[in-house]
């Protein structure tokens, strides 16, 4: 149609805008990411492997995997429960619950970490009680898990709520009238309908859990080989001018990011109809 040709900008304007956007992307995203790998391999593959197998690095990798392995399933469960309640039932105070779920997004992670120190630290509210029973939360792995759970709480729930709201409750009602009990309804009807959305949420939750710095930094205490996760290890190595080792650990995190992105894209491409994109999920 003739009208279509006149809509939009001239070819020159378009070329300039696209070039600017691509240049900016290259400068801010692609170059730094490439640089991480270039720096990590600056002294050759052997040095890369050596840095990777250094005991402190290995323990940081293990701790990160452990924290994610606890926090992500917990948040998957919490997220499912929260989304199920909010999307499928009407109750008083629903708005408040919805707002609370978003709280971790609006609080600076450092503040979140400080809250846990304030609660469970030696001089915190529960400090004396914990000391008496010889339980350490802050400056130990339980603190890292708590901080990570807090920071990554919204990812699964935020992904599922719009999806479940859009799907409504009629399939569940159909299942109930046909004789299904609650568990059967959930496992056979609700869960299959949200599986790809759930996977997507878990993926984002996991990426954030492994990459979290601020909250974890406050509660960790930076005990080498004991309470340092990968992002904390990067900082320490970098501050010690051990840039190769720092970039080696950073490259692992970067690979995780690339892998997450690839999986996320694959899911979006394959199951677009079954993923209602949650809007406004801030990046870490």
């Amino acid at each position: 149609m003739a009208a279509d040709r006149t809509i939009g900008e001239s070819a020159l304007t378009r070329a300039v805008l696209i070039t600017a956007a691509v240049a900016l992307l290259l400068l801010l995203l692609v170059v730094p990411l490439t640089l991480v790998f270039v720096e990590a391999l600056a002294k050759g593959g052997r040095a890369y492997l050596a840095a990777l197998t250094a005991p402190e690095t290995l323990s940081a990798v293990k701790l990160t995997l452990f924290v994610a392995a606890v926090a992500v399933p917990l948040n998957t469960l919490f997220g499912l429960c929260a989304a199920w309640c909010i999307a499928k039932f009407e109750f008083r105070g629903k708005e408040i619950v919805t707002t609370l779920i978003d709280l971790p997004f609006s609080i600076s992670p450092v503040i979140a970490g400080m809250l846990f120190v304030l609660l469970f630290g030696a001089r915190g509210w529960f400090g004396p009680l914990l000391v008496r029973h010889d339980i350490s939360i802050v400056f130990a792995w339980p603190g890292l898990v708590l901080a990570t759970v807090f920071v990554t709480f919204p990812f699964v729930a935020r992904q599922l709520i719009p999806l479940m709201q859009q799907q409504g409750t009629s399939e569940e009602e159909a299942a109930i009238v046909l004789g299904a009990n609650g568990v059967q309804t959930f496992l056979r009807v609700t869960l299959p309908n949200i599986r790809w959305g759930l996977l997507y949420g878990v993926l984002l939750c996991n990426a954030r859990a492994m990459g979290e710095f601020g909250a974890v930094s406050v509660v960790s205490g930076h005990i080498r080989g004991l309470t340092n996760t990968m992002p904390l290890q990067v900082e320490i190595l970098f501050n010690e001018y051990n840039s190769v080792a720092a970039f080696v650990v950073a490259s692992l995190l970067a690979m995780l990011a690339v892998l997450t992105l690839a999986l996320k894209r694959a899911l979006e491409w394959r199951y677009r109809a079954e993923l209602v994109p949650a809007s406004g999920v801030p990046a870490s």
Partner: protein
Amino acid sequence: MSIEIAGLSKHFGAIAALDRIDLSIKDREFLAMLGPSGSGKTTLLRVIAGLEAPDEGALAIDGRDALDLPPRERRIGFVFQHYALFRHMRVADNVAFGLRIKPPHLRPSRRVIAERVRELLALVQLDGLGDRFPAQLSGGQRQRVALARALAVEPRVLLLDEPFGALDTKVRVELRRWLRTLHDRLGLTSVFVTHDQEEALELADRVAILNAGRIEQTGAPREIYDRPATAFVTGFLGEVNRLPCRVENGIARFADAALDVPKGLCDGEAFAFVRPHEIDLVAAHESAAGTAVVRALSVIGPRTRIHLDHGDHVLEADAERAAADALGLAPGVRVGIRFRTVRFYPKANGEPAAGERRCGSGG
């Protein structure tokens, strides 16, 4: 199975969705619940199914108190308005669902379930479509899958919420006749909700008309059409002209005419209800209820629809095309009108009818 409903009420916040409903549905009856949107008909259906709990009242299915029974123990099949098929399951798995989730000691074997699914798909004329997903079916096919799925658990009562609402006209008419046959063949007790009066009148043994959470009237289709109990029912069943008039000493006065009214209608403002096909058009000088001027004509197949200016009001009349042509109707022509049947209702409310007056062909 019979269904007995007594004094059933349900509120959503301050709104009464159901207001002291009494209704008894006989065994093997095909009952239509007809009403405008928001009249409470779907809520009533959901209460029967156990998907909503009433605030007060009683519900008995087959003589047994059913309010304490969970939905699965009520032996009810429910067909949802938008079918609510399990979108991630194939058609055959949808139909088999109710059988597969039975507790192990009641669950038929795989082979029996497969056979039953095959029978049901044949029953709803969907042979060979078991491997499709719901998204790959047309509206009418989805509707029949929903029906097969509901029938799989051998319910005694079938509840259908606007079963034909989302279908185009031709499919709708075919499907509803087929459903009626199925109902008779399987010996079911069926209740369906609709806002389409034609559907209700054609299909049902008995129609219950709901308005604002209350039942206005129940009766056989012919009975409620011929003897509507309230102004609401008269207005809701088919098209109707509503003429304001003033009743004085047993006579209703219109713009340029007067008619006797039945006994019992108090003096004061009232409405006369006349259906378009109950208006006879005659030559102007033969007039009984006054004259009117033709405003517009439209020909709909074998019939002619005539819009008339009658005083300050527009009347719609409906005549056979041949008759209309014979009168030489054209915009601007003045004609005489006669009302064959008029129903009067007092203006203030929709209280039970004061009665009706049959004028006969002579006026």
